[in-house]
Structures are given as structure tokens and as C-alpha cells.
């Protein structure tokens, strides 16, 4: 069998395109994943035009609320590109220099101030976007909506906080600044005390009326005390208490590495084994080999060994490349090996079944892509993202192909968080047995077709 293995490796070496792809593919994947996980997600570039006159402030009652610093806050969330005019903002959006343009119109503060009057106007900001395609339109919409939701929440909290301060002034009394002049507010607490002190001096006939005023002041003081936290809650009435019911999940970067490693294993092993087996028929050597030189089972075992060996090498090469960007737990190397060997074995067996079923190398390569790519994508569909029936169908389909269990095994091997590695390894073992049996069956009619 070793002579056959050496022969296949020599043929692989003599096929420059295949050999380059086998080396270049993991390096490319490693670089892409490495760059993606070693950098923070970039802030979207947003053109920012502030037309609000300098010194404009949001008013509150008879006084002024402090400036809320919306522009400063927004520019913390996105990369603000200051522009001088609406035309410049439009141009930048159209040319794709920025994702969107945010324009704070000159009347924004006036409209905000009108909210506390009898003729309120809705404050509006302008957003210019370039929706080149539905995907970008959705992405821009989501980003801008999230951005404005945060700004609105911040403003609401500032206003609620200011409102709470005024309530405290009404209850406890204190000093209040109106047009630069300090105004002393008595407060409900002191009002009640003063009235109670005056009560003995008030004629008995008028005391019931005075008692009504004292009772009102006391009641108002006691109840307004609880209004302040209520106003605060109005800014964000619903709080989120997130609890994870599934097992802890590994960090996103570990999952990304596992996806990359599994994809590498899928394409390298599946294409190599399927192509190598189909090549035996294309070259006419299958009949010669199995005509007494080697058994069909031995030939099948050789192809599986070839796929697993090359898959192991290429996947480890890819992981070593990723290591340059992100720390991987090399202490779990034994588990990596188990995941790669059994995952590679399952892909090799599936590749052998495909190779034995197809006529030539070209059709088997096409078939391998047509089968593996959709299954790999379906394996990444999370529960809840599609309807229950469709998800059940996807689960059944992805369970029949090695990608999903291989991905689960690889994820579990790379990180201790998440479900254990035992179940996916067992699943892969079953798939190896099933696909090997299928391939062996298909080889019976391999030479005859």
C-alpha cells in the first residue's frame, strides 16, 4: 500500500496547480482568519455635518438643560468625517467614502425645546445613505438605527435626570437659576413645617382650611419622593436580563478558526480522495490494479489514508498560520489531532464514495463542490433563524454529511467552553463506517461503468 501512497503523492507533486492550491489554500485561509480576528471591527465612517448654531442649548422649564453632547457621543460610536456642507456630505456618500452622512439641522435645538411647550414639534436629524444593494441597505439601516437609538436613550436619560433634580427642588427646596438670577425655592417639606408652626396662631374657625393645606403639602412631599426613580425608569422602561440556557459557547474567534479549519479539511480531503479515485478509472489503472495486484478494499484504504494524511498536514499548517495572529491552546493538541483525524477520515470516506460514483475527475470535482458547499453553509444556520420544519430538515441533511460534526469536534478541540468532543467524534466514526461501506459498494461496479 505504501507504494500506492507514494505514487499518489508523486502525482500530486507533479500537478503544480493542485499542489499550489493545497499549500496556498490553508495559508490564504489562515491569513484571512488571522487578520479578521486580530483586529477590532472597524468603526463605520460617517460624514457629520452639525448645522446647530454655536451656544444653542436645550431649555427645560424656565431654565436651560446642560448641553447633552450628542455629537461627541455619536463620534465615539462611529468614525466621524467632518464635512462643511450638505453637498460635500452627499458627494462623500455617493462616492462610497462614507457609509452614511448624519446632518444635525439648525432647528434641532428649537424643536427639542418645543417639546416642553403646547405646540411640540418632532426633532429630526437627517441621514443620507447610498443603498447600492439590498445587503448594504440593510446593514446601513441597522447601523444608523442602532446609533440613533443610543443617542435617543442618552438624551432621554439626561432629561430624566434633570427632571428628577427639579422634583427634588420642589420637595426639598433650594436655589434655582433663572436668567442669571438665583431664585430661592421654599420646597414642600419646609412649607408644611412653616404652616404647622403657624397653626396655633390661626383662628380656630380657619384651622380646618389650614389643615387641608398642611395635609396636601405632606402628601405631595411623600409621593413626589417616589416619582424621581419613576421618571428615571421612563427613559429605559424595560431592562434586559439575558440568561444563556445552552452550554457556554467558545469565543467568536475560536469558532472562526474552527470554521476555517473544517472548511480546509472539507475541500482538501474531499477533492483529493474523490479526484484520486476517479483518476484511477480515468487512467484505466483501476482494472489493472484490482486484477490481482491489490484488493479493492486495500485500494480504498490507501485513498482514505492519503486523504487523512494530507488533510492533517494542511490543517495543521493552517492552524500554525493562525497562531501568528491569535493564541491557540496547544496544550489541547491531542484533541486537535482526534478532531482532524476523525473529521479527515469522514471527509475521505465521503470523497471515496463520491469518487466511486462519478465517472471522471472533472465531474467528481464539480460534484464535490456542489455537495459540500451548500451543506457547509446549511451547517452554519442557527436554530430559530428559519422555520421549525425547515430547521428539522436542515438538521437531518447536515447530520448525513461530515461538516457539522467535524466543525463541532474542531470547536470543542480548540476550546474547553461549549459541548464536549465525545458526541461529534462518535458521529464522525459512524459516518466513516457508513461512507466507507458505500464507497466499497460503489467500487464493485467502478471498472465496469
Amino acid at each position, binding site marked *: 500500500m505504501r*507504494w*500506492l501512497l507514494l*505514487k499518489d503523492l*508523486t*502525482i500530486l507533486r*507533479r*500537478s503544480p496547480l493542485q499542489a499550489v492550491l493545497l499549500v496556498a489554500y490553508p495559508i490564504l485561509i489562515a491569513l484571512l482568519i488571522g487578520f479578521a480576528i486580530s483586529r477590532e471591527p472597524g468603526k463605520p465612517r460617517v460624514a457629520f455635518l452639525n448645522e446647530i448654531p454655536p451656544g444653542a442649548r436645550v431649555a427645560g422649564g424656565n431654565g436651560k438643560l446642560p448641553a447633552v453632547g450628542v455629537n461627541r457621543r455619536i463620534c465615539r460610536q462611529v468614525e466621524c468625517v467632518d464635512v462643511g456642507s450638505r453637498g460635500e456630505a452627499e458627494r462623500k456618500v455617493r462616492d462610497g467614502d462614507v457609509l452614511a452622512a448624519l446632518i444635525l439641522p439648525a432647528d434641532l435645538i428649537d424643536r427639542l425645546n418645543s417639546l416642553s411647550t403646547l405646540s411640540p414639534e418632532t426633532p429630526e436629524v437627517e441621514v443620507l445613505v447610498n443603498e447600492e444593494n439590498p445587503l448594504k441597505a440593510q446593514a446601513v439601516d441597522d447601523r444608523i438605527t442602532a446609533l440613533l437609538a443610543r443617542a435617543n436613550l442618552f438624551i432621554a436619560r439626561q432629561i430624566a435626570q434633570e427632571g428628577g433634580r427639579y422634583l427634588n427642588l420642589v420637595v426639598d427646596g433650594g436655589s434655582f437659576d433663572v436668567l442669571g438670577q438665583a431664585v430661592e425655592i421654599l420646597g414642600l417639606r419646609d412649607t408644611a413645617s412653616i404652616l404647622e408652626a403657624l397653626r396655633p396662631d390661626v383662628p380656630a374657625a380657619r384651622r380646618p382650611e389650614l389643615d387641608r393645606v398642611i395635609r396636601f403639602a405632606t402628601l405631595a412631599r411623600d409621593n413626589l419622593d417616589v416619582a424621581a426613580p419613576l421618571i428615571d425608569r421612563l427613559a429605559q422602561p424595560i431592562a434586559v436580563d439575558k440568561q444563556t440556557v445552552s452550554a457556554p459557547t467558545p469565543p467568536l474567534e475560536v469558532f472562526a478558526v474552527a470554521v476555517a479549519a473544517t472548511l480546509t479539511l472539507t475541500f482538501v480531503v474531499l477533492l483529493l480522495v474523490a479526484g484520486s479515485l476517479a483518476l484511477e478509472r480515468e*487512467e*484505466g*489503472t483501476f*482494472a*489493472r*490494479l*484490482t*486484477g*490481482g*495486484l*491489490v484488493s479493492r478494499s486495500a485500494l480504498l484504504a490507501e485513498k482514505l489514508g492519503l486523504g487523512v494524511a494530507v488533510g492533517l498536514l494542511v490543517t495543521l499548517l493552517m492552524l500554525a498560520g493562525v497562531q501568528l495572529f491569535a493564541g491557540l491552546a496547544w496544550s489541547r493538541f491531542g484533541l486537535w489531532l482526534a478532531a482532524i483525524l476523525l473529521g479527515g477520515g469522514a471527509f475521505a470516506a465521503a470523497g471515496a464514495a463520491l469518487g466511486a460514483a462519478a465517472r471522471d475527475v472533472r465531474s467528481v470535482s464539480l460534484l464535490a463542490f456542489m455537495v459540500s458547499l451548500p451543506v457547509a453553509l446549511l451547517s452554519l444556520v442557527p436554530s430559530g433563524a428559519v422555520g421549525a420544519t425547515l430547521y428539522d430538515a436542515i438538521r437531518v441533511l447536515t447530520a448525513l454529511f461530515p461538516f457539522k460534526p467535524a466543525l463541532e469536534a474542531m470547536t470543542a478541540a480548540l476550546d474547553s467552553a461549549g459541548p464536549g468532543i465525545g458526541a461529534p467524534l462518535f458521529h464522525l466514526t459512524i459516518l466513516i463506517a457508513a461512507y466507507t461501506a458505500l464507497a466499497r459498494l460503489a467500487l464493485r461496479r467502478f*471498472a*465496469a461503468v
Partner: protein
Amino acid sequence: MEARGLVKRYGDREALKGVDFAAHPGELVAVIGPNGAGKTTLLSILAGTLRADAGTVESPNGHVGWVPQRASLYRRLTVEENLLLFARLEGVGDPRGVVEEMLGLTGLGERRGEVVARLSGGNQQRVNIAIGLLARPAVLLLDEPSVGLDPRQRARLWEFIAGLAGRGTSVVFSTHDIQEAERYGQRLLVLADGEGLFDGSAAELRETVRGEAPEAAGGDFETAFLSYLQHRGH
């Protein structure tokens, strides 16, 4: 090598209908017949690459060299790598020695390092035959060995094959070229629609035709052969 009552079915179609066959040491046997007669099926069964539905095959010590019609070679390996691989798989004692011998025998010594894909059809066929000879088989089976070769290459091929028979190897070959069968085959096996119609020398076949259609027997051998088939409803 001896085979008796060989039957092979592909679905409802019977490709071989109880064919008997024998080849003696040093004998050159030509298997001829129209398309679909069962020539390749018979040789494949004798070579062991196809299983018969009925009948028996006895071959000397199991050593049968098989040269399929289409060169069964790894086109990305060199001539020498191909020979060495199959020599090792055959389990011969001294693979490198045998390969050297085959390179000398087929005249491919100078092209040993060349990738098979770059060789002409004739040279690929010589490598194909050399692989069939690696285990020094007592019987060599060749399926249409001269297809695609130019006249000079054909002449060299038959000279080479005759040399093998001269050294005691039984050579069984199928061909569509009736003149070639008459010239090189010491014995002819005529198949038609899976039936063995004739087993004997070219002269014996011509004699048979002479009794049935004297005008056909006087012409070339191909005319006599066609007349023989026609008289038997083929």
C-alpha cells in the same frame, strides 16, 4: 491456459455463450470477430479483471500478463516510475533489475525519465506491454495491441511479440485487423455474438471457406473470413 464453457451476461444480453479456449506455451493465438463479438470480454475474463457468470479458467501458476486496449498507465509518472510501481506491486524479487530488463526489451531506455503523457501512442503502448511482462508471465493477453500505431511501430511491436513467443510465452491477442491475425496468429479463435465459431489455423479456415464459397477462398484472407461469417448467419 485453458478455459471451458465461459458465459458472461450484461443484463439480458449474453456477451459470451459457453466459449472454450486453450493456449499452449510459445503459441500465438489471435482472437478475431466483428464488433460486439465478445473478444474483450473473453480476454478480460482470462486476465482475471472480469468475473465470468459460468465456466472455468485454468492459468499456469496464476501468472497472466494483461495488456488492455487502452494504455493503463499513470500519465503523470515517468516511464521508469510506472514500471517500478507495477514491479513492486507484482512483488517481483528485484524490481529495479526487472525494470532495466523491460526498458531494454522495449527500447525505451533513453526515454525512461520522460513523463508518460508526453510519449506518443506507440511508445505508451510499449510501456503498457512492458507492464504486462513485468512478472514474466507464462501467458500474455493483449487486447488490440496495434490500434493507433503507425506501420513502422506495428512492425516493431510484432517483432517484439514474436520474440516473446519464441522464448516460450503463450501470447493471446485480439484484433480487428484480419490480415494481421493471418500473418501473426498461429491459431485463430473466431467469435461472433458471443459464440466460438472457429478454432484453428488461418489455412484451415481458408480450407473451410473453399468448400463453402470457392471464389471467396481464392481472394485475400479478409474476404474469406467475411464469407465464413456470412455462411454462419453473421
